[in-house]
């Protein structure tokens, strides 16, 4: 439990991107993805432009492209619909390697594939440069309701509680002669899901009381006096501005 509450997609660093206030990064990432989705799908060159823009941000943030590309495989399950489209779409059709493919279907598949990929790469860039704590503070500064911050903070805290409790239950099963093999372990875990929940709740209740007794009042305490200045916003929103220019170029070109 004493481990830092970090998440697996975070890449520790101290680059200018890492140091940027998190609320700026959240807004910039969101605006960037809006620009990508609003770009007409026939503007092929513009999408390459977005990729170059992201590459520049990775260079500044010192994120190896391979590191981020490996993690972007997370997207694979989402694009399945796209794989089916060229086969199920309407006329006109074209023949390619003996396959009859639909032209609107192909365009539609490209559309989902490229926009989904750019979206995932943007989220990954945000995740790689922003630890959990900062993300909560960013949401707080963007005036998310206090209630939402409370639930989100407790949720992030309790993920560790659940993982710890699941580990203890697994150890308990093993020490009572259970011999878990790869898949059969799933059955035992599923049967124990109810007791896992109750055990986690009872531990979580104590964690919550401990947090309250240490002065927690529903939101993350501010540990430094950093203020977000107009300069931060200008710096952080510059890539979003480039993305907007790219989207406008796309609109003009098509």
């Amino acid at each position, binding site marked *: 439990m004493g481990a830092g509450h970090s*998440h697996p*997609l975070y890449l520790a660093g101290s680059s200018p991107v890492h140091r940027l206030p998190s609320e700026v990064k*959240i807004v910039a990432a969101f605006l960037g*993805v*809006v620009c*990508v*989705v*609003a770009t007409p799908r026939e503007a092929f060159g513009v999408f390459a432009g977005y990729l170059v823009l992201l590459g520049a941000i990775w260079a500044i943030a010192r994120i190896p492209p391979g590191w981020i590309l490996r*993690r972007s495989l*997370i*997207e*694979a*399950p*989402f694009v*399945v*619909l796209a*794989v*089916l*489209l060229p086969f*199920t*779409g309407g006329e006109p059709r074209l023949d390619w390697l003996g396959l009859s493919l639909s032209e*609107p*279907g192909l*365009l*539609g598949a490209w*559309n*989902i594939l490229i*926009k*989904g990929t750019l*979206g*995932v790469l*943007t*989220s*990954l860039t*945000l*995740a790689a440069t922003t630890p959990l704590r900062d*993300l909560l503070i960013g949401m707080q500064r963007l005036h998310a309701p206090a*209630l*939402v911050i*409370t*639930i*989100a903070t*407790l*949720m*992030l805290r*309790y*993920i560790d*509680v*659940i993982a710890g409790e699941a580990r203890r239950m697994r150890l308990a099963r093993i020490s009572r002669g259970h011999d878990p093999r790869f898949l059969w372990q799933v059955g035992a875990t599923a*049967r124990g*899901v*109810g*007791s896992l*929940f*109750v055990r*986690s*709740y009872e531990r*979580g209740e104590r964690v*919550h009381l401990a947090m*309250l007794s240490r002065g927690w009042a529903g939101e993350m305490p501010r540990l430094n006096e950093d203020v977000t200045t107009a300069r931060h916003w200008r710096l952080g929103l510059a890539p979003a501005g480039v993305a907007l220019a790219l989207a406008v170029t796309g609109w003009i070109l098509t």
Partner: protein
Amino acid sequence: MVVVRITAMHMSDGLVDIPTAAVFGAVAVIGLALAVTRARRDLDDRTAPMAGLVTAFVFAVQMINFPILPGASGHLLGGALVAILVGPWVGALCIAIVLAVQALLFADGGLTTLGTNITNMALISVFVGYGVAMALRGLARRSRAGLVATAFVAALVATVGASLGFVLEYAIGGAAGAALGTVFALMSGLHALIGVGEGVITAATIGAVAAIRPDLVYLLRGTAAPLELRTATEGTGA
């Protein structure tokens, strides 16, 4: 051929066009704003950890993808679970938080489609689940078996309901040329199967909580027998 895996429900960027995403984004914002104002009443020192835990639980559960058909897998949504445990208003917030964290940190579901995803999984699924649970409340309050059955049915219906929301959004603003009939059959059929798995997990969890801490189950509020004060009368005891 690329591995055909169908992960349920999370829409990625570009699957629906910007106007549709914006409309459902507005729906999500209005729904959540309402939920925030109503949830305040439901949340106190005892229920705040429950809300946090149920959110973490849904988060963990949504990460597990299980195979349902060869080549297709799905994950649980947790809508009915949160509705029964913490009520629909807090529950909608819990699921919305899970979706927002997934989109921001784990690139699971798009940023621009966050509104449609919240509409499907945090609003439709939670409120459909809650509606079913309320309709069957009489059964749920009668016995443990009744509660477990209610949880199962609510989870099943809520899952299919959320998939119909997906189909609706795709019908309005789907950016790709897949036939609507195909999407409808794929999503609803798949989610009827996922719903069974969802129902089993929901029923198991609710059953366990109700066995040990019935005071924590939102649906059972007001059913605890009031404390009965008995005073020792002369002639007894001593």
